[in-house]
C-alpha cells in the first residue's frame, strides 16, 4: 500500500488512547480490527510490514459507516473519516477492494448514473404535478434515494417549496448521483465523473444555491465537491444548504408558518448532517418552532449514535447495520417519544426497519414530511416513504 505523507502523519499521531471505542461497529463486533484505534494500528502495521494486506483485513476495514463518532472523540484530533477513505482508495488500487456489493454499485452507476441501476428517464417521475423551473438560482438536488426509493421525501420537499412560493430549478434526468457511495468506499474515479456532470449542469443553469434533502448528498456537495473542484482546477462558488436549514430560515423570516404539532418527539442526528457538517441546531429549531416537545436521546449532537446504514455498510454487511440500528432504536424508545424525526432518507428507512423488527412503537419520519403536512393540515398523517 502507498502511504501519502498526510496518511502517514496521522498514523503516527494516534495516541492509541481508545477514546474512539464509541465506534458503533466496534460496539457491535467487539474486536479491535473493526475499531478506529485498531484500523490506525493496522495501517501502521501494513506500513511497517508487520502484517499483510489480506482479504479479511480489508473486509474489517469496510465495516465502518463513516459516521465520524471516532473523530469527535479523538485524543489527537485526527481526521479519521478522511483517513478511512484514503486507505480504502489505496486498497482499491491494490485490487483487494471494493467489496462485491460495492463493486456492483459501481457497475450500475457507470451504466445508469445512479447506484440503484434505475433507468435515467425514471429519475424525474416523482416530480410530475409539481411546479419547478428549468433554470433558477436555487437548485433542488433530490439525490438518488429520494428520486428512486424514498420519493415521499422529494415530494414533500417540493410540495413545501410550492406552498411557500419558492422559485427553484430541478435538473430532472440531468441530475446525477452525487457520488457519495463511491467516495465513501474508495472508488473515487466514479465520483469524479459524476461530479463533472452535476457541476456542468449547475453552471449551465446559472445555479447559485444547491438545496438537498439527503444528508449524504449534502455532505458530499458541501465538503467533497469543493475539494474535487480544486483538484480539477474548477471554480467553486455555490452555496449549499440542507432542507432543514432552508426550512428553518423560511420559518424565521416569517415566510412559512406551520401549524402546531403537539407531540412528543425525539431527533436523530444523521452523521453526515450532524458530525460531518455540524448542522445540529437548525433541525431542532424547526422542531421547536412547530411546538413539538423535543426529548433528546442520551447520545445526541456530536455524540449521536449512528443508525448503521452509511458508508456502504448496509449494502455489504446487513447484520452489522442491523446490530447498530437496533442499538439506536432502543435508545430512541427510552425517550418515550411518539415520533423519531430525522433528516436523511437512509436513517429514516433503516431506523423504521429496526423499529418494525424490534417491535418498537415509534413513528419514524423525516422533518420535511412533518413540516409540509403541517403547512396546510393540522395533523401529520404519517405517509410512509417507499424504500426497497
Amino acid at each position, binding site marked *: 500500500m502507498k502511504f501519502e505523507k498526510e496518511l502517514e502523519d496521522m498514523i*503516527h499521531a494516534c*495516541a492509541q488512547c*481508545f477514546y474512539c471505542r464509541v465506534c458503533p461497529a466496534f460496539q457491535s463486533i467487539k*474486536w*479491535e*480490527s473493526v475499531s478506529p484505534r485498531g484500523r490506525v*494500528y493496522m495501517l501502521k502495521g501494513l506500513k511497517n510490514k*508487520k502484517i499483510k494486506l489480506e482479504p479479511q483485513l480489508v473486509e474489517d476495514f469496510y465495516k465502518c459507516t463513516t459516521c465520524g463518532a471516532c473523530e469527535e*472523540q479523538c*485524543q489527537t484530533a485526527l481526521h479519521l473519516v478522511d483517513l478511512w477513505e484514503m486507505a480504502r482508495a489505496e486498497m482499491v488500487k491494490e485490487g483487494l477492494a471494493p467489496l462485491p456489493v460495492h463493486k456492483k454499485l459501481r457497475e450500475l452507476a457507470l451504466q445508469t448514473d445512479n447506484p440503484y441501476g434505475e433507468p435515467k428517464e425514471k429519475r424525474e417521475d416523482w416530480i410530475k404535478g409539481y411546479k419547478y423551473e428549468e433554470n433558477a438560482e436555487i437548485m433542488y438536488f433530490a439525490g438518488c434515494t429520494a428520486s428512486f426509493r424514498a420519493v415521499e421525501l422529494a415530494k414533500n420537499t417540493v410540495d413545501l417549496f410550492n406552498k411557500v412560493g419558492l422559485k427553484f430549478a430541478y435538473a430532472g434526468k440531468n441530475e446525477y448521483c452525487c457520488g457519495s457511495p463511491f467516495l465513501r468506499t474508495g472508488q473515487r474515479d466514479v465520483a469524479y465523473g459524476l461530479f463533472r456532470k452535476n457541476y456542468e449542469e449547475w453552471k449551465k443553469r446559472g445555479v447559485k444555491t444547491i438545496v438537498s434533502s439527503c444528508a449524504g448528498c449534502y455532505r458530499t456537495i458541501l465538503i467533497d465537491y469543493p475539494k474535487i473542484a480544486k483538484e480539477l482546477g474548477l471554480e467553486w462558488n455555490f452555496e449549499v444548504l440542507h432542507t432543514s436549514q432552508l426550512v428553518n430560515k423560511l420559518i424565521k423570516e416569517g415566510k412559512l408558518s406551520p401549524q402546531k404539532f403537539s407531540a412528543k418527539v425525539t431527533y436523530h442526528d444523521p452523521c453526515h448532517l450532524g458530525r460531518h457538517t455540524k448542522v445540529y441546531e437548525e433541525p431542532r429549531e424547526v422542531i421547536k418552532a412547530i411546538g413539538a416537545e423535543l426529548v433528546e436521546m442520551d447520545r445526541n449532537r456530536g455524540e449521536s449514535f449512528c443508525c448503521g446504514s452509511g458508508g456502504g455498510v448496509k449494502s455489504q454487511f446487513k447484520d452489522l447495520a442491523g446490530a447498530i440500528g437496533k442499538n439506536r432504536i432502543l435508545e430512541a424508545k427510552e425517550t418515550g417519544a411518539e415520533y423519531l424525526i430525522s433528516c436523511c432518507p437512509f436513517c429514516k428507512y433503516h431506523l423504521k426497519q429496526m423499529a418494525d423488527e424490534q417491535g418498537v412503537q415509534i413513528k419514524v419520519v423525516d422533518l420535511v414530511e412533518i413540516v409540509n403536512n403541517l403547512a396546510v393540515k393540522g395533523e401529520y398523517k404519517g405517509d410512509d416513504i417507499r424504500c426497497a
Partner: protein
Amino acid sequence: MAEVKEIPKSDWAVHRYLYTRDISNAPVINLLLKQVDVIYQPRNEREVLEVLRIAKEEGATVVPRGAGTSGYGGVLPVKDIALLRLSRRKTIMIDFTRMDDFEIDEEKRLIECSPGAVWWEVEKKLNKKGLTLRVYPTSAPSSTVAGWIAQNGYGVGSLKYGGIAENVEKLRVADFSGVKEVEGKDLKYYIGMEGITGVITKAWVKVKEMEEMKYYGFHVSAKEANKIVFAGDHYAGLFLDSNYVKLKNEAFGTELPEKDTLMVATTEKLDGDESLGEEIWETRFYPMRVRRLGPGLVAAENVLPAESIPAYLNKLNKMIKKPHGSEIWYSKGRKGAVLSFIPSDERKFFSYAFTWFNSIRALKLAKSMRGVPYSTGFYLSSEAKLLFGGDYSELREYKRNVDPKGQLNPGKVFPVGVFPLAMGILQKVIP
C-alpha cells in the same frame, strides 16, 4: 469442555498483532517483547475460570487486558528468553471488553463493576442518580475499572480522595485455584499488581454524591500552586507549566497565556479565573493531544512530594533540550504526579530512541528528590523495591505462592530476567 468453543477467541495474525500493544512505543526494548498467541474475550467469570483452566493445562502464560491504555508494558507479553526461560510458552490474553456491566448501590455509595466496565460509562449512569466517581483517571473515556485498579495510580479527585487504591472497597479475583473475594489490607496483593497475582473479575469502588463544583484558573508558579492546592478541602488540582501550555496551544490551536497555570476544582469559593479554570477542566481528558506535534511522544512520569516539585521542574527543564512540557495532578498527602511530555517523531529511530533516555534521566532526578516512579509494569520493574517499600518481600512471597510457575503476566511488576538488570545499569551510566 463444551463451553470452551463458545468463548469468543481469536488467533488471527492481525488480532495477535493488534492486541500486543499499549500506548507506549519503546525503541529497542520491544525486541524483548513477543506477540500474544491467542486472545479470549470471556463474557462472565465462569468463562474467565475456563480460560485459566486452559492456561494451566497448556502451561501457558496469561496476560489480562482492559483497554490497553497503560504505558508501562503491563499488557505486553515478554519473551521467555528475556525472562531466562529456555522453552517458549504460549501466551493467552484475556481481553475484558465483553465484561463491562456494572451496578450502582445508591445506599452504600458503591459501584459493583465487572472488570471491563469503562469509567466514563459508569460516571454517566451515576450522574443520573445524583452520584459521581470520587476518583477517575484522565483516560476515563476508555480505560476500564479493573485496568486502573490493576495498574494503580492517581487521577482527577485524588487531591481529596487519594489514588484509586484508597477507593476500592472489595475485589473478586480469579487464579488457578478458583475465585476469592478480598478486602481491607489484603487488597494490596492485587491493586497495582497488574494481574500477576490473579485476575480481577469484579470490583466494588466507592462513589460520592454530586456536588456543585467550580473551576478556577491561576497564573502562579509551582511553588505558589502548592500553597493554593493544599490550603483548602479541594477536589482536584492540575498544574500546567508554561512549556506545556505552549505545546497545548500549538496542538489545540488555542491562545492560552503561555504562563505557569494552575486549575483547582473545588466546592469552595476561590479568587481565581473561572473561565480559565473551566477551559483547562474541559480539556482534562486530552493530555496527549501534543502527540500530534511529533508525531510521536515520549513521556516521563514520577510522583514527588509537593515540596520537591518546583525544584524538580526547574532542573528537568534545564536537562531536556527538546521542546517539552509538564503537567501535575496533585494528590492527598502533599504529593504530585508529574507527567512530562516530549513530542518526538517516532519515525526517526535514533533521535526518538535518544529522547527516551530523558525518561530515565527524569526518573533519576526524581529519585534524588525523594520521588518515585509512577508505576512499574514491564519497563520499570527494576523500581519495584522503591515503589513498594516495606511491603516488597511480602508481596513477592504472595506472588510465589499463588503462581508458583510464573504463568500470570510474567515479567511485570517485580524484576525478573535480564531487562531489569539492564535498566539498573542504564540508570547508572546515563548522565
